């Protein structure tokens, strides 16, 4: 059964990576990052269960906290950029000048 969980996680991670590479909307790219984090969480929980330890679930807990912090900061940055440049497309944001 662990194999199948790992396969599902690999598929989810791959879809998230494809989304990062293909999409232009900063928000959707950000959601794809969340998708990849979720896939990794699934591998941690599955491996922890197969190894009969709680460490996987604890690692998942910390990944979740980091993801929450990342979302707060990332969305704040996206909103700040949008107020300044009126766009959320990463192709429009190809220069550092404000």
């Amino acid at each position, binding site marked *: 059964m*662990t*194999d*199948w*969980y*790992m*396969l*599902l996680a*690999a*598929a*989810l991670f*791959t*879809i998230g*990576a*494809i*989304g990062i*590479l*293909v999409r*232009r909307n900063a*928000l*959707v790219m*950000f*959601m794809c990052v*969340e*998708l990849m984090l*979720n896939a990794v*969480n*699934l591998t941690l*929980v*599955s491996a*922890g*269960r*197969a*190894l*009969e*330890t*709680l460490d996987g*679930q*604890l690692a998942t*807990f*910390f990944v*979740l*906290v*980091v*993801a*929450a*912090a*990342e*979302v*707060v*900061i990332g969305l*704040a*940055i*996206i*909103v*700040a950029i*949008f*107020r*300044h440049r009126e766009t959320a*497309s990463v*192709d429009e944001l190809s220069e550092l000048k404000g």
Partner: protein
Amino acid sequence: MTAEAVIFVLMGVTALAGAITVVMARNPVYSGLGLLGTMLSLAVIYVAQLAHFVAAIQVIVYAGAVMTLFLFVIMMIGVDVAEDTSENLPRQRVVVGVVAAAVVAFAVYLGVSGGFEWVPAGSRQPAAEASIGTVQAIGEELFANWVLAFEVTALLLTVAAAGAIALAYFRRRRAVRE
């Protein structure tokens, strides 16, 4: 077919469908709802794997807080901005497709060829007595062996909250002054 296998198939299909929706949907709101479906499906899978606490925080933190924030920002920025779908980098999509196929093929190969056999309990039905993630078990482990990481996490969240407020506040103050 065990109950866990049935749950895995049902929730795996919805999780994959949600993930594909995230990437394919033209409207960011649909992307957000697809991600929500994926997260809820994973929460059910966590319950099936006896990770009760992780399932609970998956629903509360991810599906509740994070997705609410996402949808709020999507509504604020506006959903009617059409995304340019033309490709600037030549042959990038072909490369993406090849790399994705390679990753999936590698994962399938590992699964079929027993690449996860190193996991001691991977093949048999685990007794799972030691890995039932109740709140009590998680808490005892967290405050016994992971205290430093827990405290650093608290610091990280404080810094993140302060940073988000700073990003919002200073920009508004400058706008007011202008």
